[in-house]
């Protein structure tokens, strides 16, 4: 990596991985000195959506379970356009950070909110985004605990950047993490992937897709019933980089391979139509209310039933499994019975020509 950073470094795929590793390497022992000796914590920091800490003893978790009870995540939101079918930047900022906790079995309780506002933003517009943030927080019973506002000169930001930090309590009896994955685990996807990304792409490129809305939603109510399953290994929400990136990261982080069944992946007609036109693959488009869960095969059916109780997850399905063949790689069994591999996206997704 050299020279100027590109938008590809922010797109969640291979380049983002390189950038994150570059930053982390500079902190070394300086990040959580008391915990830096814990190999689990190191791995979690790279791989998982939120961290478990224990502020009481100034450490990152107790020795027995590999993590404290307090969960923390942080996320910046710079979405364009700020308004999209199914939500806006305010709602997204709350759901995004809260979901990072939910997928690790932690209930989101508090929110810290930082706004970077461009000079000239209409105060009525700001009100609207804060109203939808407040509404999402209210629905999720997440309390605003701390906040900050900055106004920067025109041109120094694009209308509004929001950063949220979610703080919560770990509810799952065991720590959910990628290293729990076992051969034969079933992979359950909560809904059709890519709707958020497709809705944004349609808005950005001026495509008319009347039925298409972002899936932006709080996942905690849908995912919390899964925590009672002892065979639940780990979960991730398929945000930046999409389902494809989550699958690749799981495969690369374990000594196992992943097999995905194309026809089992829930599909959304409108998302597929937008992808057809722009040459995108729903597999790599962001979702903001879609999670992948890995669970022991004998509990997969029960898990699926529990998940489908939520209106967000009616289409939930087992889409694949962890296997011992082709380790560290994701293979897809296609509709016609063929086989192909799923790779991480390389950079910024750009629409194709014809």
């Amino acid at each position: 990596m050299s020279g100027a950073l590109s938008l590809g470094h922010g797109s969640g795929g291979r380049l983002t991985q390189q950038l994150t590793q570059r930053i982390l390497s500079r902190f070394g022992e300086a990040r959580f000195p008391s915990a830096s000796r814990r190999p689990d914590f190191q791995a979690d920091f790279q791989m998982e959506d939120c961290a478990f800490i224990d502020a009481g003893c100034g450490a990152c978790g107790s020795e027995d379970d590999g993590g404290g009870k307090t969960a923390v995540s942080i996320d910046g939101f710079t979405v364009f356009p700020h308004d999209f079918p199914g939500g806006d930047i305010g709602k997204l900022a709350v759901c995004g950070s809260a979901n990072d906790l939910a997928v690790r079995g932690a209930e989101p309780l508090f929110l810290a909110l930082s706004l970077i506002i461009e000079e000239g933003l209409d105060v009525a517009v700001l009100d609207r985004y804060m109203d939808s943030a407040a509404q999402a927080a209210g629905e999720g019973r997440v309390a605003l605990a701390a906040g900050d506002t900055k106004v920067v000169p025109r041109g120094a930001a694009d209308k509004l950047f929001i950063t949220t930090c979610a703080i919560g309590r770990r509810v799952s009896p065991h720590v959910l993490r990628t290293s729990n994955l076992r051969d034969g685990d079933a992979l359950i996807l909560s809904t059709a992937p890519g709707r958020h990304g497709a809705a944004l792409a349609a808005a950005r490129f001026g495509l008319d897709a009347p039925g298409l809305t972002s899936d932006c939603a709080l996942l905690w109510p849908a995912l919390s019933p899964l925590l009672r399953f002892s065979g639940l290994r780990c979960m991730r929400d398929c945000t930046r980089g999409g389902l494809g990136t989550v699958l690749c990261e799981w495969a690369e982080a374990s000594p196992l391979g992943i097999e995905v069944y194309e026809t089992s992946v829930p599909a959304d007609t409108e998302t597929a139509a937008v992808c057809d036109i722009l040459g995108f693959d729903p597999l790599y488009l962001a979702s903001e209310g879609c999670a992948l869960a890995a669970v022991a095969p004998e509990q997969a059916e029960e898990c699926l039933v529990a998940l489908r109780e939520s209106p967000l997850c009616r289409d939930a399905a087992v889409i694949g499994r962890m296997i011992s063949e082709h380790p560290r790689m994701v293979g897809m069994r296609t509709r016609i019975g063929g086989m192909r591999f799923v790779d991480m996206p390389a950079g910024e997704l750009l629409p194709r020509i014809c």
Partner: protein
Amino acid sequence: MSGRFTSGGAEAAFEAMRRELEEALRLSGPLTFMEVCGTHTVSIFRSGLRSLLPRGLSLLSGPGCPVCVTDRSEIDRAIELAEKGCLVLTYGDMMRVPGTSGSLLEARGRGADVEVATSAIQALPAARENPDRDVVFLAVGFETTAPATAAMLRQVRSGGIRNLSVLCLHKTVPPVMRVLCSVPGLKVDGFLLPGNVTVVAGEGGYAFLAEAGKAAAVAGFEPEEIMAALVDLVRQAAAGSYRIRAYRTRDVPREGNTTALRLMAEVFEPCDALWRGLGLIPGSGLRLGKDYARFDALGKFGLKSGAGPAEARDDGCQCGKILSGLLTPPECGLYGRACTPLNPAGPCMVSSEGTCGAWYRFNRQEAERWQ
């Protein structure tokens, strides 16, 4: 648990077609076909069709990815315009193609104004919203995108829009196919023709294929359509009798889309064009005809007109040989090492429909590099 994942009907139907193909190949002996279009290449990989091809049938990817055949000098010109202060609009795939010094994406990173469009028509509002700036549309593509450029230019002309011009890199498919029929060392028994180009251009332009003793079939982009066309290609080759048939769920009129053809004839005229790796091909490009010449960005901004000299640069990039089917990606020394989707050396790795990019993303052997 595995039983739950069978896709039933589609898989069984496809297996039947595969057996048909195997049967036909027993009569013909080993054959090599070229899929001309990048969208076919991607579909063949993405659908897993490639993993189901019977022994004795090889598929090569051809020059039908507009991004891949764009010469470095053409990217350089677009960057030059953007750095002169023009607002440059182009299709997303073009952003990452390296010119002699960097890509449009890198130019944008340095502050140049380059925007992604999905259709030529989007240049019109861009020109309206930026009345004080020169807007340039980088027009790329084959018969599929040329009509949209023509329609846009007609509106520019009739609407008296002065700040919008076109850097026209359009190319047409039949002339390059004619060249491929006579590339020394290229052994191809037939061609899989793209449905979308043929819808516009008609089949008439491909009559020379039969005369050259090449099988040809038109197919849509669904794996079933491609498979049906492959069966037909094998049978044509086995029988030694060639006639173009179409395998599409949508009908292809033999004469093409006459409205689009008329529009193109009004706006463009044929010219010689430089194809990356293949060199100058007479009559294979489209430039603006005399009624539209004033909207040509080359003239408007005093850039060197016409095709530049063929590339002399030798950096090991084998895109030219890949585009003409003489090499497959793993046979290129840079592939997967000095040339990856993150650091592409040539356009075949850049484009989402490029041959090398498709191999890299979907091919089993290559995926094994992560082991």
